[in-house]
């Protein structure tokens, strides 16, 4: 049945005498496979070597601090709304006097939990965040034997205060949404 003039029959089911003999095709197949004996192995031996990942890879989340070491998150809840898997929960708290060095905004997340087993790493939370607080990073999440360990609280999500323990996300922010 012809609907357009762009079609072309691409199948040839007639076998030539040579193809009927089995052996020519078998031998050429054997030659193809044996050539690979001498090729470079494609394998990346994972625990010893690590395959380079794209800097924009969507892996383990991080809650960023600003330059002065204050948490960016203001517990607006947009990430929780945007999460299709409903993996994020948070409880907001009012910043008290004397805590200005801890939290950038007046409101902060007292509890911030991501259920890493629910999370589908789609990156919508990162996009939804208006405060550049949550980012997905190119770190991998390790497996675990205990299901309860996958509820990541602030202790595991917030990056360290010292400069060394900061997580570099500059590649993401630069590449991200720049007109």
């Amino acid at each position, binding site marked *: 049945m012809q609907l357009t003039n762009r079609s072309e029959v691409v199948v040839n089911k007639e076998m030539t005498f040579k193809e009927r003999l089995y052996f020519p095709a078998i031998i050429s197949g054997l030659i193809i496979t044996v050539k690979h004996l001498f090729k470079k192995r*494609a394998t990346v031996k*994972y625990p010893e070597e690590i*395959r380079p990942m794209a800097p924009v890879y969507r892996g383990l989340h991080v809650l960023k601090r600003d330059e002065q070491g204050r948490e960016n998150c203001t517990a607006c809840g947009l990430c929780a709304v945007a999460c*299709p898997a409903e993996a994020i929960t948070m409880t907001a708290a009012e910043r008290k006097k004397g805590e200005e060095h801890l939290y950038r905004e007046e409101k902060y997340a007292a509890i911030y939990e991501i259920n890493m*087993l629910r*999370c589908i*790493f789609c990156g919508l939370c990162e996009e939804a965040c208006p405060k550049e607080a949550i980012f997905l990073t190119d770190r991998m999440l390790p497996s675990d034997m205990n*299901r309860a360990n996958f509820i990541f609280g602030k202790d595991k999500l917030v990056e360290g205060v010292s400069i060394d323990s900061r997580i570099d996300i500059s590649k993401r922010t630069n590449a991200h949404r720049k007109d």
Partner: protein
Amino acid sequence: MAKEGDRLEGFEGPGFLATSLDKAVGMARKNSIWPLPFATSCCGIEFMATMASTYDLGRFGAERLSFSPRQADLLMVMGTIAKKMGPVLRQVYEQMAEPKWVIAVGACASTGGIFDTYSVLQGIDRIIPVDVYVPGCPPRPEQILDGVMKIQDLIQNESLRRRNSAEYQDLLASYGIE
């Protein structure tokens, strides 16, 4: 698992001979895991990637897939398990020969993931005991390999007697598996 690891060192434990036997058998078992890929959806494709040349699960001695549960050591549940599939999964688990381990790969198998709906089982640990959870949707092959290595650690430190112990029987009983 840590408990058994400790007991290996102790004097009142099964004794030196037994522990070295445990260790030798553990070494052997850990390097000869035959996985049963229970691949239902997306994670199955990533498992293909794990089996393929770039990651090569075969390095861990695990390239011999055994689709028959009798011969498998490791049940890898990959992908969504719907409620209709639950009994099947459980039957496969029951058919496996001891010692057996289970790894839940991906969000769907571990918790149901994004599919919090009427038809999806919210985690396979509601019907069978799970040893290692691998997060991600789907996890990278590296993460799957990481999970397999965790299983290897478990196997290495497992006492030969664990499968006969009362705790293990209780664990199975709590899932209603005799």
